[in-house]
């Protein structure tokens, strides 16, 4: 079992690393060249702090998105914001976003303007038509249950969000976010409130990540500024609702964006992967050329 050792070792032909030939050595014998093929940390990238912090900004940004949404909801619920104003604001934001999306170029991905208009029309008609139904949906459910459900759903949204590539939206995360927003929207005083809320939910959870993805691809320098803007909006919006909460949010954001990347980079040093010929083979080339 050990390397060549001791006088007891039979000194016949040199040991070869084969099993198909009979050798005077036992089957589990290894010689001095054992572990010569060991490689350490082959595929490990060297992370740099600021690029990691930049990517972590996406996570922080998403958390503040949720915070913005909750702030909007509470202001609508409290009556501080009239729904009509919110609707117009939403329309404006949508148009701006659409313009930005087009301006950043890169093609429309196979969708014509007409198809986009159709989608918007369907969505508006549907939501407007169903908003009276949606308003009375959770009437018989107690408030605590509604809040708990929404919180759970928004948490699920954050957990399952496809941070690597936000653009084709992950089904579960988007659906969870919409479910939570419908639960919250059904608590609002009027049908128009519910409609406004749902419009903003779609903007924030469905359309904004697409724009963000575009930004990340085309204008990488503007991306951190957009994320920072959203974070600030989140903190600010929450401060009106619950100052303690906004402080908490700020701390969380700082931790996520600054402290966690530091931790990651520091811990990277301790990474110790060993590779060798005993690893499972990974097929790196594209085998689709064989499928014909």
């Amino acid at each position, binding site marked *: 079992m050990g390397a060549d050792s001791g006088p007891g070792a039979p000194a016949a032909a040199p040991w070869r690393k084969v099993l198909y030939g009979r050798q005077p050595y036992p089957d589990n014998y290894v010689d001095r060249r054992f572990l010569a093929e060991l490689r350490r940390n082959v595929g490990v990238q060297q992370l740099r702090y600021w690029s990691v912090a930049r990517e972590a900004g996406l996570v922080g940004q998403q958390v503040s998105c949720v915070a913005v949404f909750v702030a909007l909801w509470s202001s609508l619920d409290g009556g501080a914001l009239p729904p009509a104003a919110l609707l117009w604001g939403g329309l404006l934001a949508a148009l701006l976003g659409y313009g930005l999306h087009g301006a950043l170029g890169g093609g429309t991905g196979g969708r014509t303007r007409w198809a986009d208009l159709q989608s918007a029309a369907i969505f508006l008609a549907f939501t407007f038509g169903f908003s009276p*139904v949606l308003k009375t*949906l959770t009437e*018989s459910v107690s408030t605590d249950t509604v809040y708990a459900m929404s919180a759970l759903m928004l948490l699920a949204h954050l957990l399952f969000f496809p941070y690597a590539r936000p653009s084709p939206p992950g089904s579960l995360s988007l*659906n969870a976010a*919409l*479910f939570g927003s419908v639960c919250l929207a059904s608590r609002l005083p009027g049908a128009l409130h519910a409609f406004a809320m749902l419009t903003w939910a779609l903007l924030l959870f469905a359309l904004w990540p697409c724009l963000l993805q575009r930004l990340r691809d085309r204008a990488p320098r503007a991306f951190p500024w957009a994320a920072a803007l959203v974070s600030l909006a989140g903190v600010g919006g929450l401060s009106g609702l619950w100052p303690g909460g906004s402080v908490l949010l700020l701390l969380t954001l700082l931790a996520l964006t600054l402290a966690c990347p530091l931790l990651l980079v520091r811990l990277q040093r301790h990474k110790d992967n060993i590779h060798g010929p005993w690893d499972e083979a990974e097929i790196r080339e594209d085998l689709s050329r064989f499928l014909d």
Partner: protein
Amino acid sequence: MVLKIFFPQCCTTADSGLLVGCWIPDQDSAVVLAVVHYPFIPGQVKRYLTEIRSQTDVDLTVLGSWSMPKEGQEGMDSFLKDLSTIFPHSRWLQLSREIGKRGFTCQVVRKGGMFLKEQAKEGEGSVRDENEKVIIVHYDQRKVMLSQLHPVQEGVSHSKMEQSALRAVFHTVAQSHPLFFIDKYDDGPLKLTHWQSEGREASIIAELVKQGSVPVCKLLTWMLSLWSWLGSIRLLNVPPVRFISSKLSTCVQLGYRTEHLQTVSSTRKATEHMEFMRKANIFVSFLLDMALGLLLIAWLYRENRIGKLASTLVPVADVRVPYPSKNHLDLSGLKMNRALDQVLGRFFIYHIHLWISYIHLMSPFIEMILWYVGLSACLGLTFALSVLSDMVALLTFHIYCFYVYGARLYCLKIYGLSSLWRLFRGKKWNVLRQRVDSCSYDMDQLFIGTLLFTILLFLLPTTALYYLVFTLLRLVVVLFQGLIHLAVDLLNSFPLFAMGLRVCRPYRLAEGVKFRVLCEEEGTPLHLMMEINPIKVSAVLQYYRTPTYSCYPRDSWMALCKKLFVGELIYPWKHKTTKTD
């Protein structure tokens, strides 16, 4: 090799004479059917035997001789021994009784005069090859003749080889009844002793009924043919009428009774046992049915019971479906949606309103209708029950409608929910592979799908409650109808005649035999008494049940629960129609 001789009990005290019977070749047995007494002319005996052999299927021969010692007939023995040369035989039996002994001795003579000694006791140590053990089995001839072995093997026994000894014995005795026509009062050339030799039994009433039944059957058959011609005219065979008449149990029952009557009233005499039993069962159950129906009429038409029934029926019919109100149910923690609740409630209440006005329209006529419908009970209790079942079905038609609405709504909802739940998780049902696969949906689809999912989910308790209430009501009605059908089916198919036969004359339905040792004396063969073992009561039901439609549950409990949960429409009773052969 044991030779079994089946000896009728009535012949144990007969005078000396010739044994007439039948050999059962493979099983080495002989069945003695009668004893021909002295004086006789051998030629006449032979002629008589050939005559009987041509009438029946039985291979009658002279088996041997029987000697009962009496004063004045000492020379009989040797005379009878000499007879063995006259009649053709392969084996000749010589049975004889002796004064002072209960059993009788038996000597078997092979053709060619080889004398075979019989063995007096069983189980003797020495074995001699040419020795034959003889067992004499006594049987009650009348009982065996009338009895039928079960399971019944119908049809001409094309291969007698496959019959067991018992079956062969029963068959032989049953087939030989022409042999038993001559009794001791007849002035023919031969004097026989068998079970009927004391005098043929007959009853005047039975004869009169037999004579009278022929024209009655002819009349019935003509009437039934008229009825079935009526039933088959084009107007009544239009598909909607057909559909309705297949659902109304009165029409079904009418059809069955017509069929039964046709079986009973056919003028052809029943040749086989099963056919006879079936006719008899149907006839008796029909009589019972009519009797019960007439009793019902006698009870119903007294003291203005019909009027009382009519006046209680109308308020019962407009039973108000309990309308679940929000206040009442929120206490129990159910999440009812008020808007949907109001919509559904209004819809159903409108229906009930329609139904009630219809009933009120009919209410002055109800008593008259009931009076005339009650008269139909004279056709039998089964008819009255079928009419009751149909009336219940008609009066609770609105419950059935509500159940269908509620079930369809609930089913749609469950289906939609399950499909949208898959969308929620980002999966989809692969129809080709019959499994759930992942799928990348469009933004539009995701949005609208989630919205619908939320709506359906929150509206589920309301719909489920309505569904539950209507399903329960429907199940109650179905149970009640099922009970009635069970009673009707019981009346239709219970084999009363066979059961009565089993109770009063158990020997007629035989499952097997049992043997009792009669006498075991030295110097005589073993005497056994064969007694008929009647079939069990449950076996009577199994063999003789008249096939009619039987109601039994279509689904097992698990399948039923699953259907209820998913919202599929349930029709719990399946009517099995069996074809009568």
